[in-house]
Each structure stands twice: as structure tokens, then as C-alpha cells.
């Protein structure tokens, strides 16, 4: 690992400097994570009096549970749709801003602020707009003959959480797409234009391929976001319902651990989630172009 040519010599000082960070890491990260792994092999009896070692039983039970398999499917649909929606919208806006020179700063300011809105607040806002009794969207939809009720309809509920989660993520993707677009040399597009390629053709044959490092980076970030940061969105809108239609993996860990008090299963789910985060982090560090010029 890289260090300085010259260094300070001190025996105790570096440890002292690292102490606060390491203490918090060990107490609140490594120890609980270890506990989760250990507990995933245990099962408590119904009265919480006796705990016994059950090996992989929690995992077998988990992967045979229709609820868990459902949660996996829900998470997949949710993550892919949110990432796709948020990325397509933001790419569209970024391409538009990239064309304009003078007005671009104003538009950027007007588009980036939702990044600062808490996911829980975003959830509340969309929940209100889509509220079946007084919300404005069900009213508008009813006038074109579509009935909306996310309290009863599974598809409506899923759409609601996707819209709320994507709304918040657009600003983030937008900033990175704009940066990516600006790093594409204008000469390439000019050359294509001289050769007679129209704007649409230029976009698909030059801009989009050259933007792929940014796109791939954002894809990973968006998937991580929908997997782990959207708990508040779901809790504020659908609470996993109706009939588990929006019960994602993270929401289920919380419900099983704190509401259902099934510690063994919750711990096993935590371990599965850890495996997912670790593989996503590896993907992010190994394959994502890290030297994109912004």
C-alpha cells in the first residue's frame, strides 16, 4: 500500500489516532456482524429459555420459505425497475442539459435538490399524492378510467414504491450523467456530424457507448441504493403490503427481527444480505471504471 517517502517515527501515536475509528468499528460493526453469523446457527425455543445449535437449519428453512423466495423476487423487480426508471429519466434530462449552455446551471439547481430529501419524506409525499381517498393521482387516473388503490392492489403498491424511490434517485444519476457527458470530447460528435450522422444516430452510436463506464457505475450504485436505502420509502408507504407485495429483503429482516422476534431466521437473513453487499462491493471495486474523468 502506498505511503509517503518520509514518515513520522512514533510508537504509540498512530494507534492512538486510529483508536476511535477502530473502537467504533469493532463494537458496532464487527461484533454485531459476528453475532449475526453465530446466531444464524442457533434457534431459541418458544419461551426464549433455551437456545440450541441447529447448524444450517435456519438457512434451509429460509430457502424453503415461500415468503422469503417471494421477498427475493420482490426485491429483484423493485431494484431493476427503480434503477431503470431513475437512470432513463436522468439520462434524458442530462442529455438535454448538456445541449444548453447558458441555462444549464439553473436547470441543474432545480433538478438536484431532491437528493437532500430523506427517503422517508419522499415516501410520505408520494403516499399522499397516491392516497386512494384524497390523493390527486387516483382522482386523475379515475378520470381516464383507471382505478388506483395501492392498499389492495399489488401492482399499484409496487408502482408506488418504485416511483417514490426513483424520484429521489434521479438527481444523483443526473449529476453523474452530466459529468460523464461533459467528458466526451466534442470532436467525436463533430466528426460524426460532418459524416452526416443526425442527432439520434450520434446519441446511440457515439454518446451512449462512451458513456458506458458511467452507466455501469450508476447501475451498481442504484441497485445498492434500492436494496439498502429504500427501507424508509417502503415503511412510509406500503409497509411491505398488500399481501407482501412490497416486502423486500431488508424490510423482511426488520419485520422478522423486531416484530416477529424470530431471531434465528432474522440472523440468517442478515448473513444472506451481507453476502449480497460483499459481492456488490467486489463488483464495484473490481469492474467499475474508477478513473472516469469528471
Amino acid at each position, binding site marked *: *500500500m502506498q505511503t*509517503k517517502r518520509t514518515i513520522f517515527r512514533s510508537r504509540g501515536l498512530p494507534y492512538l489516532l486510529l483508536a476511535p*475509528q477502530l473502537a467504533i468499528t469493532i463494537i458496532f460493526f464487527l461484533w454485531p456482524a459476528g453475532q449475526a453469523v453465530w446466531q444464524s446457527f442457533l434457534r431459541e425455543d418458544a419461551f426464549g429459555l433455551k437456545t440450541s445449535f441447529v447448524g444450517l437449519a435456519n438457512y434451509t428453512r429460509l430457502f424453503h420459505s415461500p415468503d422469503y423466495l417471494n421477498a427475493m423476487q420482490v426485491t429483484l423487480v423493485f431494484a431493476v425497475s427503480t434503477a431503470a426508471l431513475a437512470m432513463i429519466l436522468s439520462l434524458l434530462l442530462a442529455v438535454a442539459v448538456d445541449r444548453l449552455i447558458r441555462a444549464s446551471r439553473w436547470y441543474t439547481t432545480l433538478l438536484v435538490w431532491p437528493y437532500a430529501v430523506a427517503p422517508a*419524506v419522499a415516501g410520505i409525499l408520494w403516499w399522499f399524492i397516491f392516497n386512494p381517498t384524497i*390523493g390527486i393521482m387516483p382522482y386523475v387516473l379515475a378520470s381516464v378510467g383507471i382505478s388506483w388503490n395501492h392498499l389492495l392492489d399489488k401492482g399499484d403498491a409496487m408502482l408506488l414504491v418504485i416511483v417514490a424511490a426513483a424520484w429521489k434517485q434521479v438527481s444523483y444519476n443526473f449529476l453523474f450523467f452530466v459529468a460523464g457527458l461533459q467528458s466526451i470530447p466534442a470532436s467525436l460528435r463533430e466528426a460524426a456530424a460532418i459524416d452526416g450522422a443526425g442527432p439520434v444516430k450520434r446519441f446511440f452510436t457515439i454518446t451512449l457507448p462512451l458513456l458506458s463506464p458511467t452507466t455501469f457505475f450508476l447501475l451498481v450504485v442504484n441497485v445498492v441504493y434500492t436494496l*439498502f436505502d429504500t427501507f424508509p420509502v417502503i415503511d412510509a408507504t406500503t409497509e411491505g403490503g398488500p399481501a407482501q407485495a412490497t416486502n423486500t429483503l431488508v424490510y423482511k429482516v*426488520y419485520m422478522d427481527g423486531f416484530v416477529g422476534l424470530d431471531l434465528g431466521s432474522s440472523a440468517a437473513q442478515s448473513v444472506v444480505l451481507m453476502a449480497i453487499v460483499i459481492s456488490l462491493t467486489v463488483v464495484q471495486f473490481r469492474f467499475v471504471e474508477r478513473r472516469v474523468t469528471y
Partner: protein
Amino acid sequence: MVENQRWLDILAHITLILGVVVVAFPVYIAFIASTHHPVEFMSGMMPLLPGDNMVNTYTEVLSGGVRAQMTVPLTLMLTNSLIMALSIAIGKIVISILSAFAIVYFRFPFRMTAFWMIFITLMLPVEVRIVPTFKVVADLGLLNSYAGLSIPLIASATATFLFRQVFLTIPDELMEAARIDGAGPMKFFRDILLPLSRTNIAALFVILFIYGWNQYLWPILVTTDADFYTIVAGIKRMADVVDSEPLWNFIMATAVLAMLPPVLVVIFMQRLFVKGLVETEK
């Protein structure tokens, strides 16, 4: 641009204006709702223009009137949120800059071990270790305290890597010169490293303040005492009224107040915000 096509510029403007409208729409609706009397929501149609009850609504939620169905006034929740956000942002910056300093400017046994331990925290978001972490915090007696709200969240691999990156770009000559002049490590840190990383610290602070302010899952777990509710976690508790129609104007006023501080930070410190966002990702 490559060629001057008027219709493309117009199309770009139309797209952006539509984008801005869609993005602002939910917030506009929330604000409108907060300016009306609660009875106006009974009609079944949400009004689209501001009402005349704005001052009333906001005074009532801020002071925690009985009608607002709240256990604590919003001023208290806002203060709690501010304390939590500031402790998380400052705490993360302080412990990360110190560890980056140790990792870059010293060589000592277990340096790599320390580095990897910090790195691992990237892979362990609160969401994947909810129950055991809650247990640790409960055992330490930190439930319902500012320490419990902030300390478990302040370990930061991203911030440590960022400062490490910054320190690596600072020329070695500066440190050699400082050593020749007889400066010890802490003096070098205070008089040279800190001033040189000032903008990075500011950019990181903006991002971390927003991160801290917007915390949701952790506060709902560790606070059961209304005196420690934060505003973002508090809205949900307000919206969950049993047996009666929620008081929409109060809930939406709370939502508006909950998003105002971080949104203002982004708008007024946009340059730092963008810098922080790009830096923390790399």
C-alpha cells in the same frame, strides 16, 4: 454545439421544464396541503391552490398544540435532528481524518489490518445487522440518548479513503520541510494538513450532514422516548394515527419542515455538494 438546430434546443428546454415540474410536483402538493384547514380534505378532493391556514398550521406544529396530535413540538424534533446530523457529520470527519493521517504518515505493525478493518465497514450497512447492533447499543445503555443516535453511525470507510487520497497528493517536501523546522506530527497535522484539506472537509461535511439528517431506520430503533424523536423518523409516527383520518395539513407541514434544512444546504452550497458527492464515490 455541433450544429445549430433550433428545434433541438426547444426540445431540450421542454424536456427540462417537464423534468423540473415532475420533480417539484410532490413538494408543491405537500406545501399546498399544509396551507389548508383540515376540514377541506374531507371533501375528497385535494385543493391545488394555497389556502389561508398556513401561518396557523406552522405555528401549531412548531409549538406542538394539542390539535396537532403530537406528543412533542416540532421545534424539539428539529433540534434533535440537528444535534444528530451535526454529531454524525463532525464525528465522522474527526475520526476519519485522524485515521487517514495515521495510515498515510506512519508505518507501524498491523497497519494493513487496521486499513482492512475500516474497509470492511463499507460492506456492513446498518440494514444487514439490525438486530445484533441494536442489542449492543441496548446493552451499553445508549437507547434514548444522543450518543446512541449518533456514535454507532460515525465509523466511515468512505471518509477515511477520501482523506487518505487527499493526503497522498500533498507533496512530501512539505512534510520534510516541516520536520527540518522541528515540527512534530501533531503540529504538522494542525498547521499544514488541516488547512490544505479545508475544502475537502467542507464538501464532505455537506454530504454527511444530509446523510445524518435523513437517517430513519436507526432513530426509530433506538428512540422510544418522545424527547429524542428526530423529525424524519417522527413523521411516520404522526401519520400512523389509529381510528381517525390523519390530519393532512399537519403531516405535510412536518414533511416540508423536515426537508427544508438539507434542501437549503444543497441549494446554497451546490458547488461543495457536487464536489463532495463525486469525491465520496471514488
